[in-house]
């Protein structure tokens, strides 16, 4: 097929020379993208590369300092998100933007309810909502079902249906799979395929390169507010994409020093919680990194939470160091264990508090006499980790909510380090963070498990829960997968492959 000429702006969506500056930082520098009708363009880049700023410009949430946009060859300048939607540019955000108390049909038609003298014509609302969801073939999406009762995957479909109902021409999906089950991901990709056939132009933003390879036609890589390159998806390898994103070759994403497993520090036997886990046994040694994989909903998070006293333990034995039996989170911290929550925003961090407050939250002693907390000493402790982990912030007194995801995660991890725990329980430690932060966390985990006799640091024990198998294979010594509440057998990573683990995770019989 002949390539269309750039200058006639005949693509469905074209952005050209977009610049945006926030104070001293240049968020976007002469950025241009093009998406044709019936095409999926993947937009990748680390956090802070400018993806979300670009999409905010596209959706009218912010105004670019410079730059032009065209929709189907017609100049497009939205003053606000509403105008953008009316023009046919719809965004599906990472955090779902639905009104949970209202029904599916009301969410789909929200803001454009057909009405006579202010009275809504419900028959028409219903008809149009049914039309919009028919395509999805999902029995959960009854028009009068309350949205809060739906699964996350179905809720996302409601958002997409809303975009379709307003007749969108360009659909932007921002990290759409981050909280979906594999089944929902497959269903979403199938729907993206259908939308492509209908001639929608789709911009797909993701951290998961594998996903991008699967769903996109072309990929545009952003770094530091600039377009590094655009390529047909078949013409570029995953490694090349990652290299473009980080601006350097990542040869050693998963470092692995020679570790020596020491005594057992955590032992659980036939642990059962309220609903999940049903049965889990494992032994975690000092100087060891142990991974638990599996699908979302398999009960991995519940396992960690039961261990840490955040969820009930129904039966089974737990031994942590010299302590046996279940214990409250307060005791667990005292016993030398720390948990990194999978839900940074809701549980992991006190968002409105500062970096220093968050880092020292679990142990506020030693910052002054008689239990007094001297801010100066607190700051000094925080500075240490800001430096060591490269937390990008204005200082220890900056609220963590204004940090990027990767930096927030560093703060959350710094709390465990500051507390100097022996047993690290890490739940999805790299969820929603950029490659650079991931690499740092992998390095850190390796460093913790190895210890450093020179600095007098003993090796620690690390238990990681992750949905991302390559990560577990890369960073752990031993892995097991959980399936429907049961923890499978431990495998040394050298003796197992992803295929086998995936079979276990999906509950297939493992054929020898």
């Amino acid at each position, binding site marked *: 097929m002949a390539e269309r000429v750039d200058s006639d702006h005949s693509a469905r969506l074209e952005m050209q020379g977009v610049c945006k500056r926030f104070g001293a930082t240049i968020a976007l520098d002469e950025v241009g993208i093009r998406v044709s009708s019936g095409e999926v363009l993947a937009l990748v880049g680390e956090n802070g590369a400018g993806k979300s700023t670009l999409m905010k410009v596209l959706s009218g949430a912010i105004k670019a300092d410079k730059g032009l946009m065209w929709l189907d060859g017609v100049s497009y300048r939205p003053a606000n*998100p*509403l105008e953008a*939607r*009316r023009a046919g540019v719809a965004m599906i955000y990472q955090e779902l*933007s*639905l*009104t*949970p*108390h*209202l029904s599916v049909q*009301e969410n789909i038609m*929200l*803001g*454009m*309810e057909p*009405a006579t003298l*202010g*009275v*809504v014509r*419900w028959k028409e609302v*219903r008809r149009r909502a*049914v039309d919009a*969801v*028919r395509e999805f*073939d999902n*029995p959960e*999406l*009854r*028009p*009068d079902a309350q949205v809060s*009762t739906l699964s996350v995957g179905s809720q996302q479909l409601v958002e997409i249906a*809303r975009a379709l109902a307003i007749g969108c021409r360009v659909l932007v999906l921002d990290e759409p799979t981050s909280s979906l089950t594999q089944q929902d991901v497959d269903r979403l990709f199938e729907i993206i395929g259908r939308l492509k056939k209908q001639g929608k132009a789709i911009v797909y933003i993701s951290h998961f390169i594998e996903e991008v390879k699967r769903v996109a036609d072309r990929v545009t890589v952003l770094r530091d507010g600039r377009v590094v390159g655009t390529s047909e998806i078949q013409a570029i390898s995953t490694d090349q994409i990652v290299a473009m994103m980080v601006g350097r070759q990542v040869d050693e994403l998963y470092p692995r020093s020679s570790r020596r497993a020491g005594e057992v520090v955590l032992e659980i036997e036939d642990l059962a919680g309220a609903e999940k886990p049903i049965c889990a046994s494992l032994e975690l040694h000092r100087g060891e990194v142990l991974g638990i994989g599996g699908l979302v909903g398999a009960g991995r998070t519940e396992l960690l939470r039961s261990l840490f006293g955040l969820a009930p333990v129904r039966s089974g034995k737990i031994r942590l160091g010299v302590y046996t039996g279940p214990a409250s989170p307060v005791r667990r911290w005292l016993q030398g264990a720390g948990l990194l929550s999978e839900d940074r925003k809701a549980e992991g961090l006190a968002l409105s508090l500062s970096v220093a407050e968050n880092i020292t939250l679990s142990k506020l002693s030693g910052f002054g006499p008689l239990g007094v907390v001297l801010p100066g000493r607190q700051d000094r402790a925080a500075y240490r980790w800001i430096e060591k982990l490269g937390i990008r912030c204005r200082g220890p007194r900056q609220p963590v909510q204004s940090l990027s995801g990767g930096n927030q995660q560093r703060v959350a991890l710094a709390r465990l380090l500051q507390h100097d725990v022996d047993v690290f329980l890490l739940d999805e430690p790299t969820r929603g963070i950029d490659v650079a932060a991931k690499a740092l966390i992998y390095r850190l985990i390796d460093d913790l498990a190895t210890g450093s006799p020179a600095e007098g640091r003993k090796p620690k024990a690390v238990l990681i829960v992750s949905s991302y198998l390559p990560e577990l294979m890369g960073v752990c010594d031993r892995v097991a997968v959980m399936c429907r509440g049961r923890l499978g057998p431990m495998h040394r990573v050298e003796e197992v492959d992803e295929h086998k683990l995936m079979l276990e995770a999906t509950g297939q019989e493992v054929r020898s």
Partner: protein
Amino acid sequence: MTSEQIESITSERTPLKAWLQGSSIKLVMALVGIFFFFVVAIGIQHGVKTRAANQRILAELAEEGVPEAERAKDSRLEDAWLNGWFASNRFLGRRNLETIARQTTIVGMAALGMTLVIISGGIDLSVGSVVALSTVVIAWLLQDGGLGPLTAALGGVAAAAFFGFLSGVLITRLRVVPFIVTLGMMLVVRGAAKGIGREQKINVEVDRLRWLDELLASVPKGHWMLVPIGVWLLLVLAIGVALMLRYTRLGRHIFAIGSNEETARLCGVGVERVKVIVFALGGLFAGLGGLMQFSRLTVGDPTVAVGLELDVIAAVVIGGGSLAGGEGSILGSIVGALIMTVIASGCTQMGLPNWVQEIITGVIIVVAVALDRLRHRRAD
């Protein structure tokens, strides 16, 4: 898609069925339950009292040496069953029901507005002050302004609506949360009311009142109206607001804003405009509550209805309103207000002191909301 699935999608859930599954019906049942609890309790209490009195009389007679056969014929003896029955009937009777309806009207009227405010995710702490202000303005317009009753009433309600509107404007323009703005407004409006009244009650000459004191006046037995005009007004307005919430764009947008404000804005809902309307309506209904208050006491009293907003909020919350927004219903709020009046009335007739009533009402509020949360958790 199979035809079965299409059918399941397009088959309509009837409103009645939905209502029967909802929480409103349970609330109505709770109201009826509480009511009949008092009917029975009052009956038993009076029966037991009578029996005790009878026994005392019999004992006295025995002491006086009256023969056993004569004692039972003493005229002071009463039938315990019959007495209990009468007491129950009094509580069940038209007069008492009318009293309960009348006593609910002021809180119920203000609760209409508060329901809208709470569904939209806001709160209005200025309601008590606004009620006082509108009584003062009505009295002032009647007495000092020499206006007719209708103009004065409209003036009082308009003043209330204006302050609600002002709260709404401040909340949306200054981007200060409703709690703070209306907390301030509570003092501002109370002060304004005292200023207009020169720190005193404004008494109105009886002949200027005309029909204004009849809004909540007791209706004579056998009259076609059954309950006072004020109660009818509440009923009509409640139905109107409920329909507005369910069937109009404005109503659905109020729910949408309370459920997720950002989404509503993104989808083109005029969030600021709706909020101003909601608070203005909140003021308007508080003003109507003030009109009812005035009608009952026929004075403009700047110190009246202190803390009334808490009763109003309690009514909405008992009725299933969520302070986080997105939930609540008019029927629920009215039933919530009724539950509180029934408890107060029942306790009074059982001779329980005021402090017991207060404790019971407090417990009911917490229990109602706890049960509601439990229902939510089950649904999850």
